[in-house]
């Protein structure tokens, strides 16, 4: 067990290094001459050279990459071109809010869709079939920004439970901030809960048709105990992989909801920084998003390996 955990973490590190390098290279190529563009075309070249030196842009590429990388892991994400401030100071608290929003959404997805999947398998057939499918389709089709507008109107303007444009300070009013985030999480999670529930249900249905279920019944299990003792565990790996993907997507999906509900997360700042060509900021956010995706995948794999012994070998067994 320990061996493949280490192996998987090794893979994680290598992937992250690769991602960070590619991102760094890409921004090297697209950013052109930042010192020149910061100072404008009319600036004298000695000023440009001085700024270049100040920003460390006169050093060789690999040295800069190495410095950036070591800086990244010690919390130094570089200096913003637009604000002339450390990137971390600009995005730290925003990142915190976005991650909180993602985690709350993800928790909602896990807590609701797994029991819902089982419920819809057990009772979603027969006469309820069309109710279940149409409700499911409906939920899947609701875009988070629309739910966001709806919730702002109903709970923000009619009932005044929260104020959509005005996000409370996370440390001064944690309760109110949490409530605000919670509304955002509802918007994000509804379509994903619908997808995960449907996925869970169809996985259970296909597992139920497998030969081991017939064996279990021939030993005296009823459908319920087959579900509980055999099928659920066998369905879990697919669901975990699916949830891993959901977790990966959700951080990027927060951007729109943050705009609609006025949540001061990374999303709005990212859009702004892209418009201002503030590459150090964009680069840092891109790498953070990529790390999040890789991390989600790794976690899903590790959980699956602990569920399914066949995955512990080398991962190449079906």
């Amino acid at each position, binding site marked *: 067990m320990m061996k493949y955990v280490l192996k998987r973490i090794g893979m994680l590190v290598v992937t992250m290094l690769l991602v960070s390098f590619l991102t760094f290279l890409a921004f090297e190529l697209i950013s052109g001459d930042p010192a020149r563009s910061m100072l404008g075309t009319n600036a004298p070249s000695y000023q440009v050279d001085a700024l270049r030196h100040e920003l460390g842009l006169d050093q060789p590429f690999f040295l800069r990459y190495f410095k950036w990388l070591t800086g990244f892991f010690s919390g130094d994400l570089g200096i913003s071109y637009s604000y002339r401030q450390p990137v971390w100071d600009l995005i730290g608290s925003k990142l915190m809010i976005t991650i909180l929003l993602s985690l709350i959404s993800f928790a909602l997805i896990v807590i609701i869709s797994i029991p819902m999947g089982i419920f819809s398998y057990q009772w979603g057939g027969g006469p309820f079939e069309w109710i279940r499918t149409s409700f499911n389709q409906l939920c899947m089709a609701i875009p988070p920004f629309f739910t966001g507008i709806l919730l702002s109107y109903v709970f923000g303007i009619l009932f005044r439970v929260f104020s959509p444009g005005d996000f409370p300070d996370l440390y001064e009013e944690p309760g109110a901030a949490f409530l605000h985030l919670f509304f955002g999480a509802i918007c994000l999670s509804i379509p994903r809960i619908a997808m995960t529930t449907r996925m869970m249900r169809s996985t259970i249905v296909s597992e139920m048709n497998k030969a*081991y279920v*017939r064996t279990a019944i021939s*030993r*005296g299990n009823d459908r319920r105990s087959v579900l509980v003792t*055999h099928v659920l*565990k066998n369905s879990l790996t697919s669901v975990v992989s699916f949830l891993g993907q959901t977790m990966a997507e959700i951080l990027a999906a927060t951007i729109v909801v943050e705009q609609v509900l006025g949540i001061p997360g990374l999303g709005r700042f990212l859009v702004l920084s892209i418009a201002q060509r503030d590459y150090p900021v964009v680069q840092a956010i891109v790498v953070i998003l990529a790390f999040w995706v890789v991390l989600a995948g790794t976690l899903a794999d590790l959980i699956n390996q602990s569920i*399914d012994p066949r995955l512990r070998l080398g991962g190449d*067994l079906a």
Partner: protein
Amino acid sequence: MLVIKDLHVKFDNRDREAVAGVSLTIEDGEILGLVGESGSGKSVTAMSIAGLLPRKQCTYSGDILLDGQDLLHAKRSDLRKIHGTKIGVVFQEPMSSMDPLMKVGEQVGEALRIHTKLDRQARKDKVIKAMESVELRDPEAVYDKYPHELSGGMQQRAMIAAAIITEPSLLLLDEPTTALDVTIQAQILELLKKLNAERKMSMLFISHNLNVVRKLCRKVAVMQKGCLVEEGLTDEIFLNPQHPYTKRLIDAIPTRIRKEGS
């Protein structure tokens, strides 16, 4: 004693009856062979006995009585008490018939968990004994293994152990050796013979291979297209097949093997 009287099974999505009027008797302690080509209705017959028919998707009639108790029309809840206590079933593909995520020992002991109040340790002791009686080497180690860690032959032995652990009076074997290679197949046949001799357990042994049946079963029934075409003592049928279909089945066995057997 198992008595089947005029069993008919027709799946709703098929035109032809899968089983079209089969009557059979298996005496206590007897092994009956059931042979026939693919699709002749052998498995459906066994599933009917085991109470594993998808009842909603088919129509069925006739009687199946195990020691006088009706199986074909029994309630699901009554069937569950028979599953794994009076009837054990072994299927063709041991690998896919086992839960890939449950340890072998637990699967072997599953019927005990369901039907008895034995605690974990007592169950384990019985499982180890059952594993020994099916000649699984190193049962303590096998107990904690997962199905994919066993060879096909070991998996099938474990499946047999699981089927006999509650000492059922009837064992249904649906092509238990077809997926195994020839040497393992021979070992499993020997094992079944031994179990039958020691425990006086009745067996229905399904195969499409008459030669395998001849090694194990004193009596044999031949099925074709849902009907029994011939039934009797295996040796007599081999020497003097009455039905052209049986003749063809016997002729299909290579001559060398046919002589070896006699």
